């Protein structure tokens, strides 16, 4: 049911990330990226795509800005661009791999409180998503015309109130649910 493997995976991921920021040779980083892709098994294409999608905007922005600055000041280093982009892609790939292959719940198997926290978070996220969806649908069905900015602001604020209200209420209900089932008696 619980496997300690995921805890080790989490540790390995964190170590790899720290190592990836401590090495400053693009060749090593590229080699590490290759190794990560090789080891991640099937679906590596999807991992790489996901990583690229995640960092593309930042990488382009920073690289472009750097090139422009370099053109103005006349001291752009292609070595740096290679280093920066390899590092960004390597770390994003490692993270995508971690997200795919580390089950946070299993990684936390030794910390029952943390697992319980995570379970409640999951249940509650589903509840809040439903609240937001219903709210948006209700707004849409009630708004006959294009709503003004003011009325949209009020709508968002009302959703904020409803969400906070619900959060308070749910926190109390979950507390009672846990107490009712003896969670605070151990």
């Amino acid at each position, binding site marked *: 049911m619980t496997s300690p493997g995921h805890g080790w995976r989490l540790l390995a991921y*964190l170590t790899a*990330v*720290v190592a*990836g*920021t*401590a090495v*400053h040779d693009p060749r090593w980083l590229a080699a590490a990226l290759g190794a990560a892709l090789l080891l991640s098994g099937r679906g590596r294409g999807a991992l790489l795509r996901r990583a690229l999608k*995640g*960092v593309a*905007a*930042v990488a382009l*922005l*920073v690289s472009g*800005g*750097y090139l422009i*600055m370099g053109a103005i000041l006349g001291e752009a*280093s292609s*070595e*740096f661009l290679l*280093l*920066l982009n390899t*590092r*960004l892609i*390597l*770390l*994003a790939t490692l*993270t995508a791999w*971690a*997200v795919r292959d*580390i089950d*946070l719940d299993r990684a936390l198997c030794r910390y029952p*409180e943390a697992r*319980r*926290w*995570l379970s*409640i*978070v*999951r249940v*509650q*996220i589903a509840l*809040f*998503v439903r609240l*937001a969806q219903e709210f948006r649908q209700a707004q849409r069905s009630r708004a006959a015309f294009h709503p003004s900015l003011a009325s949209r*602001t009020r709508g*968002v*604020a009302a959703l*904020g*109130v409803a*969400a*906070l*209200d619900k*959060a*308070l*209420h749910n*926190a*109390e209900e*979950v*507390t009672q649910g*846990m107490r009712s089932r003896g969670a*605070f008696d151990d």
Partner: protein
Amino acid sequence: MHIPDGLISPQTYLPAVAIAAPLWLLASRKLRTALEDEALPRLAVFTALSFLLTTLMLPLPGGTNGHAIGVALLTLCFGPWTAFLAYSLVLLLQALVLGAGGITTLPVNALAMGFVGAWTAWAVFSLLHRYETAAVAAAVWFSVIIPALLVALVLGAQPSIAQAPDGTPRFFPFGPAVTLPAIVIPHLFIGAAEAVFTCLVWRHARRRRWVNPDRSKGVKAGVHP
């Protein structure tokens, strides 16, 4: 601000972990003594709420600039420690479940937006509490601006903190002259928008008595044994 991994040097994020870790511990202690049994469910529910607020509501252009909505609101209603913890946990979920944000930037973000943001809101509100609506608006606005300033400075310091022997940068390449305007100026407007939103919510919060006179203890709703 969702800075991906690889832009911040270990010389920055390792000390940030060292500062954040004891604060997380302290915050969870505070929450436990203030709320006892209720701490875990309360924290979980608020984490879920902030997760949705920050993840779904405001994806900003460029992808670099996700923003913590509601840190100030959570602070005003439930105290800075709850807001700080909930927001840190949100960052953790985003990094490990969604793969957004980056794990090395987590401590920097948690300190800047979670800790400094929450306490800024708290301090500004306490200073001005006699003019309530203005106090809320100012608290929110500053709780957005100050962390943005901080993040801009941390990012802008990267080229001087971590550079190769020949002087080329190894991480984020631009100095504060670039990062300060690029990050702070948009946040002037974001802060204003969030201030309006928070003031509207706050009015209702007051009406429903969520706001406890001794807010550092958070609100105790319902009848408890």
